[in-house]
Structures are given as C-alpha cells and as structure tokens.
C-alpha cells in the first residue's frame, strides 16, 4: 500500500450540498440496517466467524476483492499513477492476477479441505503449535495496528477533502463498523463489503468516462501525457530494462520476482484478511471460483484508480507535488488527484456518491481487519493458549467482545499516530515483514511433504528476521539500498520488492535445510494437508463454462493480452 499522509491542511477540496449529505447518511443507515437484520444469524461459531460457510462464489469473490479495495488503496494508487504513470498498474495486474489464480487452483483446495478457520490454523495442522503461535500473534497484533493507521489516514483525508473534524470521522466510522460486525459477524462484514464494492464502482466510474471525453480519447490522452510528462508514463514494460529508463526506478526483475512471485503471492494467498472471505464459500467449486471472479474484476480496477491518475496528468491545470513539498507550500499533493478529479466532474448528488464510495472503501477495509483479527484472536490465540474447554457460545461471545476491543485498540492507535506521525511508516513496514516469509512457509507446507514442523517454524522466523534486518540496515544507512535493491538508482518501492524477495529466499532455504536435518512427518499426519497426499474432490459433473479451470484460463488470456496492449 502506498503511504498516504498529508501533513498540512490546505483549503478543503470539495463542499457537499444537502443532497450529498443525504446520500452519505443513507449509506450509514443501510449498513447498520444490514447488521441489525443479520444479528439473529450469528449465534454459532461457524455463523459468526465463518459466515456459516454458505457464501456463493460471487459473494465470496466480490467480498474477497472489496476487503482489499480500501479508499487509501484507491487514493494512494491514483496518486502513484500521477507520479509514476501506468507502471502503477503492475500492482493490479501482474501483482495480483497470477497470485489470485494460484490461490484458486493450487492452494484453495488445501485450505478448504482442511476445514481450517484461518491461515494460522492451517499452520497448526501442518507444522504444529509453534508456527501457529508465531503467525497468529504477529498477524493479530499487526492487523489491529494497521486498522488504526488506516483509520487515522481516513480521518485525515476526510479533513482535507471535506473539512470534517478528525475526531468525528474516527468515531463515527469505527462505531459503525463495530456495531455491524458485532451484530452479524463475518456474514455482516461480507454483505457490507459486497454493497461497498458496488458503491465504489457507482461512485468512481464516472471519473474515467468523463475524463476520457474531456481528454479526447485514449490516443489523445497518451499524446498529452507524453507532452506534459514523458512517453514512458504510458508503457508497462518497455522501460523496465534498466533502473534509469522508467519513472519508478525499478528493473523488471523486481516487478516479476519481487512483486509478482513473492509480495503478491504472499498477500493474496496467505493474508488472512482476504483469504477469510474465500473460506466462507459454500463448497469447493465456489471456493475455487471466488478468487477467479475476484481476479476478473481486479483487472478492471485500474479503470477507476490508475486512469484517473493518468487523466489528472493531462487535464488538471495545476502541477501536483510530493507530500513533503505540499506540506511546505500548501499545494495539492499527488494523493489529492482522485478527490480533485471527483470535484472536477461531479456536481450535487454525484459528489455525495463519490464521497460515499471513499467512505465505503475505508469501512470495508476496516471491517476486514477487525473480522480477521477477531477470528485469529479467538481461534488461534484464546482457544488454544488461554481457554481450550469453553462452549461454542462462549467463543461467540468472545468474538463479539473482541470485535469491540479490536475497534477500540484501532481507535487508540489512530490517536497515537496523530501524536507521532512517523509511527505510520513503521507500522506499514512492520506489516510487510511477515507476508513474504509466511508465503514461503505455507507454500512449502502445501507442496512439499518433506517439510517438517521445525523447518516451517525456523524458516518463518529467519525469513521475518531477514526482512527486519534489511529494513533496519537501510533505515540506519540509506546508501545500503544499493545492496538490498541491487542498484544505486533504486527507489522506495524497489526496496520493498527486493526485501520481500530476499526474505522469501531465506525462509525457503532455512525451511529446506532444517527439514532435511530433522525427522520427516508420516504420511498419515499429512493427509489432507499436502499435495500428493490429499485427494482433492472434483468440482462435480458441470458444464465447461462452470469449471474454475476454464474461467482461470479466460482470465489468464485476457491478462496476457492487456499486458501486450499496454507494453
């Protein structure tokens, strides 16, 4: 995620009309009504934490995507598109689609068949209690902190865009999320995420439509961008042969191996925030189809995120600047490009819908964090280590209380970040430490039966420590970036890519070495958990157009064609 923090508060970007306020209030009323309606359907652990495992492929797939489609994501990447051009699309295409298809076709059967409640829960089944403890504690801690960081960033954006008071934004949004998740559990979070998905598209799609009309179409837009910035701003791959021939200062190896192979695989296949939505699917075919449906829509997201950023380059009369410069001069920063485009085209009513889309994005991300935190705390920390003999009813109550407490911790974190802004960067960096090595551990666990419990634990620990060490090294000595990212021209995003790559490699090497030096696990222990020892049930006798493999192929072909078109 791109850090989004405005230090200065210039003039408010947009002013809402009464009709806009009505639209925003209606949104809050509807999400609360959904939570209230679903409160009677969250009485058992399976209902509250897993939404009864009865979601269709479409609901699970859209929720899977929506949990990731936060407003910081939208605004941050629109700003990145203004700053780096179409290169930002890599985070939506090669940085997501292959990983989603891999999750659907390779990993999801193991998650689903094991009937685990969570990713740490799978680690417990495959590698034992120590690996689960390490991943559960780090995930729960970082998830709730990330939720607070996002909450503060949202309140800051609402202050800049709408002039709203920060305290008002924090408390209204957090209490709303707390109420509807506490009442309806994961089912309520999923229902609202699907609703939010539609609102985000309804509110944001008009910007590229009107923007392309104003710019005179795609061809004219490219000419204007080449004139105002550089021709490389509209090419995905052709400038990645060298660190110096593209606006991001990154090499194609960083995009392919760092982003596509490690970071995106780690995020989309092991981050429980998104995987939890798929685990709620009603059967194995739905569980496989859901990420494929998500991938199909993920390919379209650049239309409402990247394209507005590129259009901003062409049509906005003013030149946007980095956050650091904006803080001093009071000019608009890159991250303001989406609200600026919203204000440019959207009159009364449409503006309210656009603002609702941003709020919906924030709240879907927050609800995702809170519901994932609640499940991991209850099933992977509280039940195994604190109280293992309680009734199902007790764990549901624990889940409801944990939701409230998780939201309150997030609010506390938001206020902490308000006092010490640098915490935001640290928390975001800390979160990334765990993703790459966790992917190494999980994928080896699923695909290599020789991996042992000790190998999994030490691989995860060493990979994480490797990531932390590199980050600290660059923090202490910024010139070390030339070693971590293989070039003195590398910039911040390139560091993330290579840091993830090295920590993944460390995790894999340590896991392999330790596993080969320790006693193998028996086949009976690994049945249902590892490739080769698990009978994956067939999706049933369904027509070709209902088979996950068919749609994965369609998505993969479209993905390749898009990359060639925008090469």
């Amino acid at each position, binding site marked *: 995620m791109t850090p989004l923090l405005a230090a200065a508060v210039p003039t408010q970007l947009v002013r809402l009309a009464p009709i806009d306020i009505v639209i925003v209030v*209606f949104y809050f009323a509807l999400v609360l009504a959904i939570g209230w309606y679903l409160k009677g359907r969250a009485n058992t652990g399976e209902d509250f934490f897993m939404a009864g495992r009865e979601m269709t492929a479409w609901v699970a797939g859209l929720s899977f995507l929506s949990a990731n489609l936060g407003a910081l994501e939208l605004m941050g990447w629109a700003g990145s598109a203004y700053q780096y051009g179409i290169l930002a699309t890599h985070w939506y295409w090669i940085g997501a689609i292959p990983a989603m298809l891999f999750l659907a076709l390779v990993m999801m059967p193991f998650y689903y068949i094991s009937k685990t409640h969570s990713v740490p829960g799978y680690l417990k089944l495959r590698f034992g209690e120590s690996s689960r403890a390490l991943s559960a504690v780090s995930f729960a801690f970082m998830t709730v902190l990330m939720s607070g960081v996002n909450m503060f960033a949202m309140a800051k954006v609402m202050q800049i865009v709408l002039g709203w008071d920060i305290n008002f934004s924090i408390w209204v949004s957090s209490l709303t999320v707390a109420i509807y998740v506490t009442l309806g559990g994961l089912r309520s979070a999923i229902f609202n995420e699907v609703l939010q998905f539609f609102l985000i598209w*309804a509110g944001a799609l008009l910007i590229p439509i009107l923007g392309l009309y104003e710019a005179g179409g795609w061809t004219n837009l490219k000419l204007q961008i080449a004139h105002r910035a550089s021709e490389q701003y509209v090419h995905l791959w052709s400038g990645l042969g060298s660190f110096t021939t593209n606006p991001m200062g990154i090499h194609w190896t960083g995009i392919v191996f760092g982003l596509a192979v490690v970071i995106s695989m780690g995020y989309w296949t092991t981050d429980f925030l998104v995987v939890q939505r798929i685990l709620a699917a009603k059967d194995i075919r739905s569980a496989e189809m859901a990420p494929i449906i998500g991938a199909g829509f993920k390919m379209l997201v650049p239309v409402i995120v990247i394209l507005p950023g590129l259009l901003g380059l062409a049509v906005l009369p003013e030149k946007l600047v980095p956050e650091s410069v904006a803080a001093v001069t009071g000019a608009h920063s890159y991250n303001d490009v989406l609200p600026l485009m919203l204000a440019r*085209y959207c009159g009364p009513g449409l503006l309210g819908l656009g603002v609702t889309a941003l709020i919906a994005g924030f709240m879907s991300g927050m609800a995702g964090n809170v519901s994932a935190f609640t499940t991991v705390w209850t099933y992977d920390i509280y039940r195994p280590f604190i109280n293992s003999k309680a009734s199902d009813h007790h764990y549901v109550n624990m889940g409801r209380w944990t939701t409230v407490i998780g939201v309150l911790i997030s609010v506390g974190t938001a206020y902490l970040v308000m006092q010490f802004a640098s915490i935001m960067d640290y928390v975001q960096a800390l979160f990334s430490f765990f993703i790459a090595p966790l992917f190494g551990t999980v994928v080896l666990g699923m695909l290599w039966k020789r991996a042992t419990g000790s190998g999994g634990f030490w691989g995860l620990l060493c990979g994480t420590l490797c990531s932390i060490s590199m980050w600290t090294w660059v923090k202490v000595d910024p010139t070390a970036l030339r070693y971590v990212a293989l070039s003195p021209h590398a910039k911040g995003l390139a560091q993330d890519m290579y840091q993830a790559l090295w920590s993944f490699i460390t995790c894999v090497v340590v896991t392999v070495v330790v596993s080969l030096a320790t006693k193998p696990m028996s086949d009976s222990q690994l049945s249902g958990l590892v490739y080769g020892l698990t009978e994956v049930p067939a999706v049933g006798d369904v027509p070709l157009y209902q088979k996950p493999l068919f749609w994965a192929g369609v998505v993969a072909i479209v993905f390749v064609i898009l990359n060639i078109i925008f090469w």
Partner: protein
Amino acid sequence: MISIWFFIGISLAVNGALILAAGVYQLVNPPVNPGVVLFHLHANVWWGAVLLAIGLLYCFKFAPRRTS
C-alpha cells in the same frame, strides 16, 4: 433470508433517484456557476437514471417474496 443483491438494489435505486432528482433540478434551474467541468453533459441526469434502473431491476429480481 433477504438476498444481499436486494440490499444492493435498494442502495442503487435510492442513490440513483436522489442523483437523478438533483440532475433534473439543475436541468430545469441551471446554476449561474455550475462549478464542474462538462456540466453541459448533465452527467447526474443520465448516471442517476442508469443507477436507478439497475437498482430497480435488482430489487425486482431479488425481492424477498421471489427468493424466499
């Protein structure tokens, strides 16, 4: 159980109706200073109508009496 798609239909229909109403009002009473680029396209009229139509379709297709 009420389908999620019915809730989405309600949301799109209500938002569409409000945006369409605001657009029609501006069409009848054009503001001196519209404050937006491409005002002459009256995006809130046709976009509001599109959302209203999709919302009503969802409300009808996934109405509780039809899905229960």
